[in-house]
């Protein structure tokens, strides 16, 4: 078996995976609800969690850029390596871009984002109904793209495990990890 990911890398991966899974489910669910206090509450929670993901992804990137991940399994084709890099790069872009689009959308719609009701994020855009709707459409399109990409990510992990019989999946699972370097 090649080296597994460190427990820090695993922690980032799984905490964010859970958060993002919840966020996607909540986001798609709440958007179609009729207006109610519960809906407003869910929107606030969604925004708080989104800001949390946004902060976490920067910490994760900082970690990623200062720590080499385990090498690809021996014999992995160049094309597959490239696809893996491109896929992971796109996941990072979306993990940053989606919260930003949500934040800007909130600003344009005139609802400031205040993290946990305590830390206000500046409104970078003034209130503008048309722009608000465009950003809402963008936020939604990016999320649909995100769901597709996560599907590809999961499929790739399963494919590697079952078809290529390498340890791509196992090395990210909880369990034995090398110490942080």
């Amino acid at each position, binding site marked *: 078996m090649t080296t597994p990911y460190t427990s820090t890398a695993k922690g980032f991966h799984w905490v964010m995976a859970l958060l993002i899974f919840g966020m996607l489910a909540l986001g798609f669910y709440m958007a179609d609800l009729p*207006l109610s*206090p519960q809906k407003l509450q869910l*929107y*606030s929670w969604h925004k708080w969690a989104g800001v949390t993901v946004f902060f976490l992804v920067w910490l994760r990137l900082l970690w990623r850029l200062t720590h080499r991940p385990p090498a690809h399994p021996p014999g992995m084709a160049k094309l597959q390596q490239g696809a893996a890099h491109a896929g992971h790069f796109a996941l990072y872009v979306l993990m940053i871009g989606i919260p930003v689009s949500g934040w800007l959308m909130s600003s344009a719609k*005139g*609802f*400031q984002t205040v993290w946990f009701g305590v830390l206000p994020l500046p409104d970078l855009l003034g209130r503008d109904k048309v722009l608000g709707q465009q950003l809402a459409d963008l936020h939604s399109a990016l999320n649909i793209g995100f769901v597709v990409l996560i599907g590809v990510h999961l499929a790739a992990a399963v494919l590697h495990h079952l078809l290529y019989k390498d340890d791509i999946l196992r090395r990210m699972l909880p369990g034995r990890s090398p110490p942080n370097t």
Partner: protein
Amino acid sequence: MSHFFKICYPPVLALATTLALATSAHAAPYQAVQMDKSRVGFSFKQMGVSVDGRFAKFTPQISFDPAKPEQTKASIEIDLASIDTGSDEADQEVVGKSWFNTSAFPKALFVAKQVKQTAPHVFEVLGTLTIKGRARDIKVAMKHTPQGAQGLLSGSFALQRADYALGEGMWSKFDVVANDIQVSFQLTAIAGK
């Protein structure tokens, strides 16, 4: 002539300005409101976050002389369906039964009962605000800012939405939409009708 005017112009202008200001201070009472330079807005806290909006249509009727505030006659009628909360679904929700119920109570009405001066350019306005068939006495501090022949009358006050049964049923708790609603107004008052 032009030479004479050039020399005299600054003092003449200063004199003219002084006269204009002096005159405006003792101008005829304000009798009308310039609607395109006037605004009635509100703000409230939703999940702890301040949200604001405004009413596009309102009808003020004023007769206000800053020198004789006790003779003030003022009322303002607000077309509640003209609300702009910033979101279409909220605009639709607040005209419904649990909020304004505009089909039964289309207008909010404020009528001033007593106005007195409390400081230079500051007046205390006592009056009755009626929303959704509920009348409550309120007190508003109003600032008068002379602007030539016009005057900006501005102020704000907090109302408790529960006093007017705004937000019944599922909205009646204050955890998501706070009870306090800050109402603000800026009216550009003019002398003529």
